């Protein structure tokens, strides 16, 4: 029983972080129609950058995080301005593969600057574990969930009330109409990439505070894909709900399926879920089914 509770709590909390990263994907997809396959590499890069600022440069925590956020914003701007802007209105195939090129490039940059494959961030959260009933959960998980929830709240307020947020939702709805209203669409694209990079950075820092910085962070980004596929590619709500589901499936599966199958079953569960969703309900739980005309 204690075991089950433990799996459920870790699954739900890690799932929140996946959902956070997935939100960045959904945002870019909705506003500009670009599928950002470099998500995992963005997570990896920003985690290593945080490590560089906090450990190698030795900044205090608060200053380090501000620098990381600025870095993420700049990164988003650079990617949108110099790589995706020239490709506007190109076929979807180019838009997907160009992010693969970006992913490959970022991977090279990470190996180039930080050849060590493993590192640990300094301790961000208190150590002593929490006791929830019979289960023992380390505080990092709880903090990760709390921060993710706070960001969800902030984002939904932003989309509800802020001018930029409303403009982003409008762009997602109908690009041409937005252009006709005089809203600069390219600026919306740029902003959505910035927000996506910031979300990837926060998600990366949270994940690496739990498990350290490894190359496995790329797979965190890939798990975010399974979140968006399950939740529906164009649904924020879907991402928020599917994130904890993926986290739960992953942790419960790792806990109970490993004796039945091979070790390491944890890593493929999100991918198996992707395949199942593709066969059963390809547009996800909350995705909008596209009806095409010739």
């Amino acid at each position, binding site marked *: 029983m204690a075991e089950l509770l433990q799996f459920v709590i870790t699954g739900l909390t890690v799932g929140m972080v996946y959902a956070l990263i997935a939100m960045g994907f959904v945002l870019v997809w909705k506003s500009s129609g670009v599928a950002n396959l470099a998500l995992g590499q963005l997570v990896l890069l920003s985690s290593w950058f945080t490590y560089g600022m906090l450990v190698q440069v030795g900044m205090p925590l608060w200053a380090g995080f501000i620098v990381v956020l600025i870095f993420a914003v700049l990164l988003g701007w650079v990617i949108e301005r110099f790589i995706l802007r*020239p490709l506007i209105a190109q076929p*979807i195939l180019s838009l997907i593969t160009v992010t693969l090129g970006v992913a490959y*490039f970022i991977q*090279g940059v990470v*190996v*180039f600057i930080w050849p060590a494959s493993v590192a640990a961030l300094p301790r961000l959260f208190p150590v002593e574990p929490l006791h929830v009933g019979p289960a023992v959960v380390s505080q990092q998980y709880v903090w990760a969930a709390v921060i993710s929830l706070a960001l969800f709240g902030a984002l939904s307020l932003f989309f509800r009330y802020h001018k930029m947020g409303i403009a982003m939702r409008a762009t997602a709805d109908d690009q041409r109409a937005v252009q006709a209203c005089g809203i600069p669409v390219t600026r919306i694209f740029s902003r959505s990439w910035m927000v996506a990079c910031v979300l990837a950075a926060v998600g990366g820092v949270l994940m690496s505070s739990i498990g350290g910085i490894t190359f496995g962070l790329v797979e965190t980004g890939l798990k975010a*894909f399974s979140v968006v596929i399950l939740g529906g590619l164009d649904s924020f709500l879907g991402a928020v709900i599917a994130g904890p589901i993926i986290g739960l499936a992953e942790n419960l599966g790792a806990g109970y399926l490993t004796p039945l199958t091979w070790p*390491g079953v944890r890593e493929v569960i999100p991918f198996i879920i992707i*395949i199942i969703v593709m066969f059963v309900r*390809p547009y996800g739980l909350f995705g909008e089914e596209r009806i095409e005309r010739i």
Partner: protein
Amino acid sequence: MDLPAGTRNYTYAQDMAILRTRTHWFLFVLLLVAIFTAPLYWGNYWLGVANLIGITIIAAIGLNILTGYCGQLSIGHAGFIAVGAYTSAVLTERLGLPFPVGLISAGITAGLVGMLFGIPSLRVKGFYLAISTIAAQFIIIWVINHWTGVTGGFVGMRVPYASIGGLVFKSESSQFYLIIGITCLTVFFAKNLARTRAGRAFVAIRDNDLAAEVMGISLFRYKLMAFFIGCFFAGISGSLLAHWIGYMNAEHFSLTTSILYIGMIIIGGLGTALGPILGVVFLKLLDQLLTVQLVPFLESTFTALPAGFATGIAPMVFGLVIVLFLILEPRGLAHRWQLFKAAYRLWPFSY
């Protein structure tokens, strides 16, 4: 426009022919002679590079049929290559079957696995398909890494040399003939496939699959056929790779390899017969130039290079090349070659 000046068609057969003029035939024979006499004057090192290029071309042609002609983006190609490699390795090493059986069943197994993961393509496309092929890649590699009894798991397994009858392909040069021979057959097949009913159906599906279906092209049949053919070549390539290296583990088939394959066919030119060849040669030679020539030179010249320089520089350059090609020349090297040919034929009155 495509024809040299003064060349006219009097029959349909002439119109369809690939090699038209006497100069074409002369250059073609010259090329074949140059390729098949290469072991006489190339050293073992460059033969090895040529073998790797040949193996990669086969897989890239498969991906080009799937992605370039039929428009079904696959980011799991390395996974399908792995299926072929391990099928052939297991059949020849563990069961002691002859190499040709291993080669053919590698192709067929990879094709069938590809078809299985291609089934979602009937309902979804674009990003959804890309993600499901990534998932295929991870599931395949996970199975290979953990099915220890058959594949040797993380440790890997030994693979015997390729042999047909009593002939064992042991040296670089004998393997060169095997690999380049199969590569030439593949190129021939791919060039002609594009001109058949199936090839035209693929292009129609790529351009607009709904319109294609309305015109009476069975999407079910042709999309799965594209997956089968594309992954069949991946399997053949994997089998050759396994017997060429002589040792297999799953590290040869990472996601980055899959991305690189996409990069190759983009750099070469999607949906052209020449594209995959140009792309593979370009990227493999760039790889040689970087890792074998440039990096040791720079490391010996500048001592203050960061430690990750040698391993990080190649992905950085490859990523950059892919991005730049997509932005500046999305039709790839094959398009440049077309422009060059047109300019050459019209010279000195090119416009």
